[in-house]
């Protein structure tokens, strides 16, 4: 039971896979060479030689092309063909075809009238098959978005050209052997048969298309899940690891948890990183300022904003003043929570920053403390706003900030003035 075949352990058998790069026609020769561990030149030479024997080489190549899958996109890239090797390979292809024609002519029964059209048809088939390979590779690359065959104009052109070549080849072949009248009858029979087959196999086609769609959906879902997993790993799991490491410091744990919570919310509720980097609305700006204070001072800022509007020059000053008020509360009040409430009304925007901390006597604030005077009062005054302060030692502080909104008529002009 427990013995494992030694050979399998020593060297896992690699199935044959057609090369994706470093190929001349379809990568069959390269794939076989990789599988056998020989120079690709010799494989090509053997195919060419076999082609001389009544075209067996072409047949073998075609069958391998059909039945051997391409190497999957996830496999490592092989080196691509250099021009010299490519020339060599094309030479071998030409040699093989030439030899086949010569041997066919020499051996008599096969006439040039048959070989010529057949070769044309084969080239056409090769073009179409190659395009199918391309489409598969595109599908790997684009993640299940493109269809069976390519959709680009050049792809369609190639496919049509290939089909035309095949049709011409077969047509010439048939005309040469049967003559026009018989051909017309045969053509009708063939078309009728094809039509019948198409009708009979409709369910099969539908199932095939449905299966492909289903597979695509599954793949998209899987990709989405992978993206979510990656995000959670980068953010939540890292933070949890940090929290475990810092578990003896409750302050730090709280800070980490709050900042992670905020990030996750932003992500879940679709506020993307660009918006939060440079908020453009009042509510986003207040949220960002609150978050920064939370992070910096390891406390929680309970923020509520009612209504919303675009941020302009004056409102930006209002947000900055509010942020300064939060920082003051965090530094001096000695509390674990600050309440911030913003309300956007048609005529003005109001922000309240409140703590239930120590409070202070405004008259006793030392002269060198510029926070309230400059950062809050000065800023609000410069932009036409108003500050009110309510504070009682022992009961906490509330800073009330009011900024009138520009009326819609004057807003444009004022904005340009502010910018110049």
């Amino acid at each position, binding site marked *: 039971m427990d013995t494992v075949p030694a050979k399998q352990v020593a060297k896992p058998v690699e199935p044959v896979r057609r090369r994706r790069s470093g190929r001349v026609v379809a990568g069959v020769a390269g794939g076989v060479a990789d599988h056998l561990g020989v120079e690709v030149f010799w494989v090509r030479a053997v195919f060419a030689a076999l082609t001389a024997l009544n075209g067996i080489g072409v047949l073998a190549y075609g069958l391998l092309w059909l039945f051997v899958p391409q190497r999957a996109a996830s496999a490592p890239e092989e080196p691509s063909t250099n021009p010299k090797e490519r020339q060599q390979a094309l030479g071998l292809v030409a040699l093989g075809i030439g030899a086949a024609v010569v041997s066919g002519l020499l051996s008599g029964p096969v006439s040039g009238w048959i070989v010529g059209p057949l070769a044309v048809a084969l080239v056409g088939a090769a073009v179409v098959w190659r395009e199918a390979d391309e489409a598969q590779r595109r599908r790997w690359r684009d993640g299940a978005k493109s269809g069976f065959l390519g959709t680009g104009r050049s792809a369609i052109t190639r496919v049509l050209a290939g089909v035309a070549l095949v049709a011409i080849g077969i047509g010439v072949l048939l005309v040469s052997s049967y003559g026009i009248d018989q051909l017309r009858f045969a053509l009708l029979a063939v078309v009728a048969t094809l039509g019948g087959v198409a009708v009979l196999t409709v369910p099969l086609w539908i199932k095939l298309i449905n299966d492909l769609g289903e597979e695509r959906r599954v793949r998209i879902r899987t990709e989405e899940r992978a993206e979510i997993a990656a995000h959670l790993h980068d953010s939540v799991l890292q933070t949890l690891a940090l929290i475990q490491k810092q578990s003896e410091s409750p302050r730090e744990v709280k800070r980490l948890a709050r900042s992670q919570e*905020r990030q996750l*919310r*932003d992500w879940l*509720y*679709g*506020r993307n990183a660009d918006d939060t980097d440079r908020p453009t609305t009042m*509510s986003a700006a207040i*949220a960002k300022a609150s978050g920064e204070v939370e992070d910096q001072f390891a406390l*929680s800022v*309970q923020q*509520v*904003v*009612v*209504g919303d509007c675009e941020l302009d020059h004056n409102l930006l000053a209002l947000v900055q003043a509010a942020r300064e008020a939060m920082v003051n509360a965090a530094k001096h009040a000695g509390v674990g929570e600050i*309440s911030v*409430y913003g*309300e956007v009304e048609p005529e003005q925007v109001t922000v*309240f920053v*409140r703590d239930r901390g120590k409070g202070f006597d405004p008259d006793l604030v030392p002269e060198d403390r510029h926070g309230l005077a400059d950062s809050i009062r000065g800023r609000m005054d410069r932009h036409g706003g108003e500050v009110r302060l309510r504070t009682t030692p022992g009961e906490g502080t*509330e800073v009330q900030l009011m900024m009138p909104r520009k009326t819609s008529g004057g807003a444009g002009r004022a904005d340009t003035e502010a910018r110049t």
Partner: protein
Amino acid sequence: MTGQKTAVRVFLVDDHALFRAGVRAELDSITDEVDVVGEAGSVGEAVVGINHLKPDVVLLDVHMPDGGGAEVLRQVRTALPEVVFLALSVSDAAEDVIAVIRAGARGYVTKTISSQELVRAVVRVSEGDAVFSPRLAGFVLDAFADRPGAAPISDPELDLLTPRERDVLRLLARGYAYKEIASELFISVKTVETHVSSVLRKTQLSNRYELSRWASDRRLV
């Protein structure tokens, strides 16, 4: 004074077992004002448990599989009108919060609330008051705001907040306690409670299209 009063019987509904255990441990350890009598991890369990135990207050998670807190409310409220529901959630999406309130919850608090405050909130809803966290107050103010394109007012009694109710809500949103609101507005705490209950009733009953549309428009944090 808690000596004479029997403890408030609380039932926990949350699909996270870890969170239930945490709340239960906190509530049991800090006070005997409340008594956790049961818990449930799904809508089905909750309906069975609440019908069986008939608790005073149900602490209800907003987000759960199979319809969430609103579904529990729909299935239980008509049969047991005396059971009071308090929504407790991490979800700050306005539509979820408003939905649970409209389904009949008497209040909404976030899961980051401190244990003491949670106890206070539970006792308060058990006495028939509404509990508005600052965030809920903000949502409701926003929902009743008069903005261009708002739905016409069909019933002024239900579709508009009085200036006084607006003042109370603003102060709630600013983080004021009832007592502080009362002294700020020179009214009694009882009057504050009346205003808040009235706002709750309007939030639940107003048919203003704006309420629901606003909530789905704005999934804000």
